[in-house]
């Protein structure tokens, strides 16, 4: 193990998403892991961090032109980036890991720019080779595997969800939270309003779920069968861009929507246009249900049922509920 310090972004610090646990696991393979937070971590979060071997949490004390940066402003990419850059300077860290959400990517780009660091987006693996950080990445809708080495001293990497199995450390530790000052540069950008969509479905978040059931044009607007199967499986529900544009579901799986790489992806009534494939082709097992046997999705799936999803999905859901007892 080298003397390398790896910083992992913990935002929010009031809960730990499974993707962050994966980041912590990956980070341990690279060096000594420390977390960077923009608010005080809760007791539960600290306990979980401890289980994952994190000894230090750096809590940013954010100010801009003499006043505190607080509330929603803290989650803006420029603020996150300032906190990360300051933490790198403070700890002399060599690697910064973030999840691969759009906000995190923006923050990652800004940090890398301010530090002159190399940047890899959407890595599926991160390891060390010959003293350099090497990221594995799947590109071109999952058709190619690439390995990319960072050639600068500091590496900033955003990591895809579902890329590692989260594993607690061999021995739990007791994390210490240390405040550190971060001066955020003045910006002409104003946050006018911010609203977080509350997810009351009780389902796992789409970008992290182990199983995703997605509906497309073939649902004809009725997502009942899709939700039914998802609930039988404990899965997240997604949609194709077409279905989302029709207003039948709000989040869509696709290159410009949410990119998923779950253990199982079930696409129902989705033809599998390149745009959509780009958002799910890295899934481990792909199942398609479509009444059209010529649908492009059949070319990339492992199992398919040619039939009406309104018949197939409820029947599958019932069988699964029976099996689970």
């Amino acid at each position, binding site marked *: 193990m080298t003397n390398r310090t790896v910083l992992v972004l913990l935002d929010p610090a009031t809960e730990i998403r499974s993707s962050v646990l994966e980041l912590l696991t990956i980070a341990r393979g690279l060096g000594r892991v420390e977390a960077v937070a923009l608010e005080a971590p809760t007791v539960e979060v600290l306990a979980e961090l401890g289980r994952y071997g994190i000894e230090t949490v750096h809590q940013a004390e954010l100010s801009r032109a003499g006043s505190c940066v607080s509330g929603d402003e803290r989650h803006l*990419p420029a603020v996150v980036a300032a906190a990360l850059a300051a933490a790198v300077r403070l700890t002399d860290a060599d690697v910064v890991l973030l999840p691969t*959400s*759009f906000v995190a990517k923006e923050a*990652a*780009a*800004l940090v*890398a*720019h301010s530090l002159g660091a*190399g*940047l890899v*987006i959407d890595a599926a693996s991160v390891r060390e080779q010959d003293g350099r950080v090497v990221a594995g990445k*799947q*590109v*071109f809708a*999952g*058709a*190619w*595997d*690439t*390995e*990319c080495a960072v*050639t*600068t001293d500091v590496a900033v990497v955003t990591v895809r969800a579902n890329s590692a199995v989260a594993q607690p450390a061999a021995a739990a530790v007791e994390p210490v939270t240390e405040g550190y000052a971060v001066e955020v540069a003045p910006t*002409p*950008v*104003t*946050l*006018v309003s*911010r*609203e*977080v969509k509350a997810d009351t479905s009780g389902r796992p978040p789409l970008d992290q779920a182990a199983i995703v059931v997605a509906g497309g044009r073939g649902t004809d607007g009725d997502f009942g069968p899709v939700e039914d199967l998802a609930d039988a*499986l404990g899965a997240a529900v997604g949609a194709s861009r077409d279905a989302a*544009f029709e207003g039948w579901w709000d989040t869509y799986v696709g*290159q*410009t929507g949410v990119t998923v790489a779950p253990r*199982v992806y079930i696409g129902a009534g989705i033809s599998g246009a*390149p745009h959509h494939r*780009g958002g799910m082709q890295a899934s481990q*097992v792909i*199942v*398609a249900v479509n009444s059209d*046997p010529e649908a492009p999705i*059949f070319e990339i*799936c*492992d*199992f*398919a*049922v*040619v*039939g*009406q999803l309104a*018949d*197939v*999905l409820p*029947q*599958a*859901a*019932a*069988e*699964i509920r029976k099996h689970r007892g």
Partner: protein
Amino acid sequence: MRIVVTAKYVPDIATERGFQDRRVVRNAGEGTLNELDENAVEAALRLVEAERASGAIGPDEGEVVVVTMAAPDGDVALRKAFQLGVDRGIRVSDDALAGSDYFGTAAVLAAAVRKLGEESPVDLVVTGMAALDGLGSVVPTLLGAELGLPTLNLAKKVELAPADGAGRVLTITREIDDVTEQLSAPLPAVLSVTDTANQPRFPGFKLIMAARTKEIEVWSPADLGLDTGVAGAVGARTETLAAVPRPERAEPEIVTDKGEGGVALADYLIRNDLV
């Protein structure tokens, strides 16, 4: 209202894309204007058109310039932009720019925007949300950082406040990662738009004809005062060590529903330990 749109010429996503010698294959004839840049062009054209419609500028004022960093076959992307109605197209080219990473690309595009700004002030730089080959989504942010301009990313809705004596304020609404935000910044600024921001227009016949012979300006890094070491493979902060095609999936198991299709699906998941 002078708007620069930065665009990319990318391998056609409907073709077999891949690598050779660890570099993306960019064959002449198999590339297109990045589809997401059409939304950027559309956003720019609508802003200029709105300014004319409101009388803020005269009917012949306002300009949309598209800039791309590409080899000569990238002209295809500029001609498509001409078909949509942009006024001017510029290609920045040099063999040494091949293999540029995000930072090199942003540095070159920023230098082009600065050079255009020397002719007359640029009010806004508009980009698509990502290039469909790399899907990094970071060049817009880096462009703003290079230019020292406020950056408003991933806009679904774009509103430009009427001029009121002070500067113009641009407000965007974006919906990403379950969060809806409204952000604003004064011009000049950098703006990236999503594929949900607008429906790009169909090329007009007259524009299609004119696009064939419209002049494309070609600039070199030297024209931009850029040291080529800043971009290209030489300036890159990452190095591709390997690029290997993933094995194709085995032939799928396909079942036709004759009344038991759902049972077959459940059975597949159960026997493969996926439930």
